[in-house]
């Protein structure tokens, strides 16, 4: 049985609980053991490096790497933002001796930063063979058009992330296809949703996210599938604001990757927190369509 240290991050512990719930469910279904990282702290997100030039972001993420480093298991961070910060800290610590010294000084011992860090896509691709998922899914989502939306932090910058293509990522596709769903190409799959500007510069988020939703609807996509809580919130929770700002009436569901896989496994929408999405998909219709 595979074992992972699990870094939920602040979003999965609060406003994106359905991501946490569905991720744990999928892991359980495939016999993957998740051990939540003890006393983890906020990864620093975007404001840390933007506000205090880099070093705070590295220190905050490094404390988590250090805790994970005490164990043997690799670390999985389903939130694309947390994942990005953890990988970034690792990258900087590897290359900067002074930063390493400074970090060790704050932590009171030699920093352990070399634990393998995985995002949800890499981890599930490693643990679940598409064939095994397809066998259990029995085409449950046939006829549903699910388009992966990767955003930025899951795939960029390539030299830090080193997984998937930074411009034309594809790694969600094999497992999504195994659910029975149709997985159309989505041209805006690695465009930015507007990031963390939702409060301070709302118009940026509304415009960027509107563009993504509009393109998805025009392409006849039934739902976008993402691995980033911030993208999910900008596209889903703010969809009402987007509709008001642009005079549109979009109702495009934006699912988490683990929710899509969970549906294929036959888990109920309640177990997967589908009812926590602002725009809820009509799951019954999806499943009936396939039957």
């Amino acid at each position, binding site marked *: 049985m595979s074992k992972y240290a699990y870094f939920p991050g602040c979003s999965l512990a609060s406003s994106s*609980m359905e991501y946490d719930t569905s991720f744990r469910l999928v892991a359980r279904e495939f016999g993957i053991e998740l051990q939540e990282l003890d006393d983890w702290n906020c990864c620093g997100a975007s404001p840390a490096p933007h506000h205090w*030039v880099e070093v705070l972001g590295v220190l905050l993420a490094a404390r988590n790497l250090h805790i994970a480093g005490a164990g043997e298991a690799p670390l999985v961070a389903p939130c694309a933002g947390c994942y990005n910060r953890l990988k970034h800290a690792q990258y900087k610590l590897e290359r900067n001796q002074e930063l390493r010294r400074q970090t060790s000084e704050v932590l009171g011992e030699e920093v352990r930063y070399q634990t393998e860090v995985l995002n949800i896509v890499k981890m599930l691709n490693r643990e679940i063979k598409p064939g095994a998922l397809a066998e259990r899914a029995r085409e449950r989502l046939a006829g549903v058009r699910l388009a992966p939306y990767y955003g930025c932090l899951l795939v960029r910058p390539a030299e830090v992330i080193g997984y998937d293509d930074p411009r034309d990522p594809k790694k969600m596709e094999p497992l999504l296809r195994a659910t029975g769903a149709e997985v159309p190409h989505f041209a805006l799959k690695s465009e930015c949703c507007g990031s963390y500007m939702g409060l301070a510069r709302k118009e940026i988020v509304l415009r960027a996210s509107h563009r993504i939703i509009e393109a998805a609807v025009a392409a006849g996509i039934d739902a976008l599938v993402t691995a980033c809580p911030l993208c999910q919130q900008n596209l889903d929770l703010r969809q009402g604001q987007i509709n008001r700002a642009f005079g549109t009436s979009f109702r495009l569901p934006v699912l988490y990757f683990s929710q899509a896989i969970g549906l294929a496994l036959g888990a109920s929408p309640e177990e997967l927190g589908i009812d926590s999405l602002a725009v809820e998909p009509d799951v019954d219709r999806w499943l009936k369509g396939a039957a």
Partner: protein
Amino acid sequence: MIEAAKTIRAGEEMLAEIERRSGQDVSSCYQCGTCSSTCTATLAFDYPPHLFMRLLQLGLVERALASRTAQMCYDCMTCSSRCPVGIDVADVIETTKNIADESGRSRPPKEVALFRRLFLRNVCRHGRLHEAGLLAWYNIKSGQFFNDLSLVPLVLRKKKVHLVPPRIRQRRELRRIFRQAKTKPGAK
């Protein structure tokens, strides 16, 4: 004349510093504009990315340092992934911002600075982000009392909000991290 020569010289030196720290060759940009066509933040910029690169090429580095582009880029790195020459445009912008910060040449717009500051204060206090607290403080401090209030019934209905802040045990260690970062703002 001598003043002009000095300005040009200073610009060249600063550009060399940006190129050294980012590891990018600014002169190789041929102004195709792909970066700007893909950028979602131009709305908040004074110079779209390709013009930002042009400023640097022309040695107008002071303008780049003081620009809203440097302060407002949120690093989605789409430009970098699209550049046909392979320039990491986002890194050039970020490096410029870092130099501007270190030398106190520019500041982000006040709402953005406020959001970042409150976010970090929140994390420093609890160890984890308390989203409801951040929204409340941001609205009070910015005077935008109704900002995102339309989302409140929705997040309550969807049980997406925790009223009690989360707390980690080692908050003292967290505060040490913040102190260390504050005293070494320029560490790269």
